[in-house]
């Protein structure tokens, strides 16, 4: 786990901070949903956000993506001045670019996407009556510029951009393993594929940071494994990932760092090992009956097992 300045780093190496939340507080009337939470996401890092139901995970997430404006505190983001031209890369996801200085989040969700932050939703929000390919092409919207006049006149620039959009969308579908479902309607796709399609759509916006809200909710173990492979793949292509999850084993396998929220407050932050051995986390989960780990071993056994898997993952 050494920090280097080279372009190719080990997968788990950590770079400059790209997203920084300091003292984020969100209050809905009398309800204090998120209270003074700090989080720093660095380049090429997978950060997990856990906590029992109603802990304020999604609210915090919405603050990060600019959907909510925090009551107090600040979210800052290393918005990358986007190079206009995309180098034709073999990998599906944009290679690393120099990280800019941290700046306060732009005021509109749309501008946040442009700055390089993309998200998925807890309950899938695909454009159900569009095909998979079209869904991803919508994600390219903020990286394309054809206006109404260009679209009506259809000059070479329009054609080029349209072809690029299509090619890139197809590339991303293949990246998430849906290359053969391009012409399927989103609403006809199996649940797991819809989740992956949502990730592909988020990746189409060329983000620096991807925020995934419960990407494995409702998935079977095999699909969950595929999802974690996909998230590693995204990380390896140089993006940072923030994941909300209930599935403890999934998150401890996956993340470089985990932040545990309980009742709107940051309970503990650290490596998966640290967090899962923290008695307060165990208490928060078991105390509220939230541990949905349905392993045949008891909760304690499951945790031991998780640790070993996580360590193996870290070594590899």
């Amino acid at each position, binding site marked *: 786990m050494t920090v280097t300045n080279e372009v190719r780093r080990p997968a788990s190496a950590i770079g400059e901070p790209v997203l920084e939340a300091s003292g984020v507080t969100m209050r809905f009337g009398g309800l204090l949903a998120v209270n003074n939470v700090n989080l720093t996401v660095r380049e090429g890092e997978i950060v997990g956000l856990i906590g029992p139901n109603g802990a304020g995970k999604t609210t915090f997430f919405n603050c990060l993506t600019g959907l909510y404006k925090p009551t107090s505190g600040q979210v800052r983001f290393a918005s990358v001045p986007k190079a206009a031209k995309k180098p034709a890369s073999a990998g599906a996801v944009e290679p690393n670019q120099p990280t800019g200085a941290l700046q306060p989040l732009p005021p509109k969700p749309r501008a946040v996407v442009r700055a390089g932050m993309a998200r998925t939703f807890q309950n899938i929000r695909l454009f*159900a009556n569009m095909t998979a390919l079209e869904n991803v092409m919508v994600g390219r*919207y903020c990286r394309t510029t054809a206006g109404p006049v260009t679209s009506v006149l259809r000059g070479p620039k329009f054609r080029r951009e349209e072809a690029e959009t299509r090619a890139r969308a197809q590339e991303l579908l293949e990246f998430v393993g849906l290359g053969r479902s391009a012409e399927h*309607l989103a609403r006809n796709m199996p649940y797991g594929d819809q989740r992956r399609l949502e990730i592909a759509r988020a990746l189409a*916006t060329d983000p620096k940071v991807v925020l995934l809200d419960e990407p494995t909710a409702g998935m079977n173990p095999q699909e969950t494994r595929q999802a974690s492979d996909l998230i590693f793949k995204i990380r390896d292509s140089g993006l940072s990932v923030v994941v909300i999850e209930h599935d403890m084993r999934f998150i401890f396998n996956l993340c470089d760092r985990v932040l545990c929220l309980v009742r709107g407050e940051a309970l503990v932050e650290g490596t998966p090992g640290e967090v899962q051995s923290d008695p307060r986390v165990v208490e928060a989960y078991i105390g509220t009956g939230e541990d949905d780990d349905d392993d045949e071993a008891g909760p304690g056994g499951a945790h031991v097992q998780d640790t070993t898997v996580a360590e193996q993952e870290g070594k590899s």
Partner: protein
Amino acid sequence: MSGDLTTRTSGGHPAAWPLGLAGVVLVIAGSFLSWSYDSSILGDLSINFYPGSLQILAIILAVLGLVLLLIEKGPLESRLGQWLDATLGLRALGLMLTLYMALVLIAISVESDGLINVNPGGYVSLVGAVLLLVGSRLLPLRQLRDLGQARLPGWFEILTIALMMAAILFAAAFALGLTEAWAFVLCLVFITGVITALFRTGVMSWFGHVAQRHKKVLTLAAFVVAFFFPFTQGGSDANMSIATQVLIFAATAMGLNIVVGLAGLLDLGYIAFLGSGAYVAAMLSESAFATIDWHPPFPVVVLIGACVAATLGLIIGSPTLRVSGDYLAIVTLGFGEIFRLAMFNLDGTNGPLLTNGPNGIPGIPELQIGNFNFGDEHTVAGLELGRFSNYYFLLLLLIGFVILVFARLNDSRIGRGWVAIREDEKAAEAMGVNVFGLKLLAFAVGAFLAGVAGTIKAHQDVAVSPDQYIFLESAFLLAAVVLGGMGTIAGVLLGATILKLLPEKLRFFSEYRLLLFGLLLVLMMRFRPEGLVASRRRQLEFHEEDEQLAVAVESKLAEEAK
């Protein structure tokens, strides 16, 4: 009775086919006999062995029935029987033929005095039609192959398109040539009969596949047909006047289709944009009542009118597009009224003198582009073309332009953004789609196109006045879009034609016009909310639960992608 029938149809009744054949023969035989004692009605149906035009229509329907019977069981069965569902076609045809004959008898007895005027031929044909109907109900249902796989030589498919278009041109010219309302209604029943029969047999679905394969040919053919329509009118202005009104209405509805069909915004004041274009053209025209002493050439006027309309669109859009759905509808409705009242009051006493208030601006001269005056008559290849034909050709250009804008915007990044907004506005915003900007764009583009149409309308109508731009017109425009099929080109053209043409031809219905349209819309919403011609995406949106439909649409999409 009906229960008895359905149990037998599963296997097919031995008498069914002969019954159908007998029906066809009777209809044809009856049509050669006299239908009516009175020779002055319905284009003379009183002469034996000399069928009038309505009798020929009955014969055509019967011959179509004969062909279907031969497909059912006979020489054509081996080639077409496995593709076409002759049974369903015959059932539809039998029903429509019976309806046709019944209406003929009603028409005769209404137009002259009572049933006494119906001659035996009419009854013979009616009996034949009923026999065909009963026979078709007794025929067995069939298992068919997927028409999407049917392949014929390319030249044959293109020939079919050409024939279809020629038939449309001929039917339009024929139907519009009928001066009697009853004859027109009967002709409509005939056309509906043929079309439903073709739909039920699957010919139309095959034609849909063909059209998909030869999209450009189809578009070209449609424009050629539209282009040749004035030549069928022999210099008569009556129908050409209606045709130009239909075209203006259709072009405006097409612009509204961008707002409603593509962006999914409900606009109930759209006529105001047409009106602003028309008023701009009137104020800048050489009319003695024009209020602005500047008369630029027409292309400049078009541009100004369109820009004024688009600016109005932006002005009304930027504050109101923050509300959605019903609220937006209410605000736009208010805007439409504001426009009308403003035009009413800009008369020099209540405000600046721009519109002459309720008097409007009459006496707008004919359009003059270069040396070409739109009021002149021309003779092309021995065929006379009157004043309205000139405007007709100009409007044809306009509608081509509107369709081009519509289709190209739809099939672009912007169109995808609109669909995304319709599907899930919040997700679209979270994916970086400029939701507000795209909605505003739809408003502005729609207004721009309506403004262009308005500038031509002012010259064609010779006068503009506030009472042309009432709420009812906006409602009719919206009805045309909804009836035809939101988001489609063919559908909205069809809807606009129906809504504009029928009231013109069926003037004796005019008192019940609103009642009928209301009824029509209610029925449409109940049975086919996606409109006559359904946009696939809209169809899916209206039938969220229908899994079969979704799969069917998907396979079509896959076919198109190939």
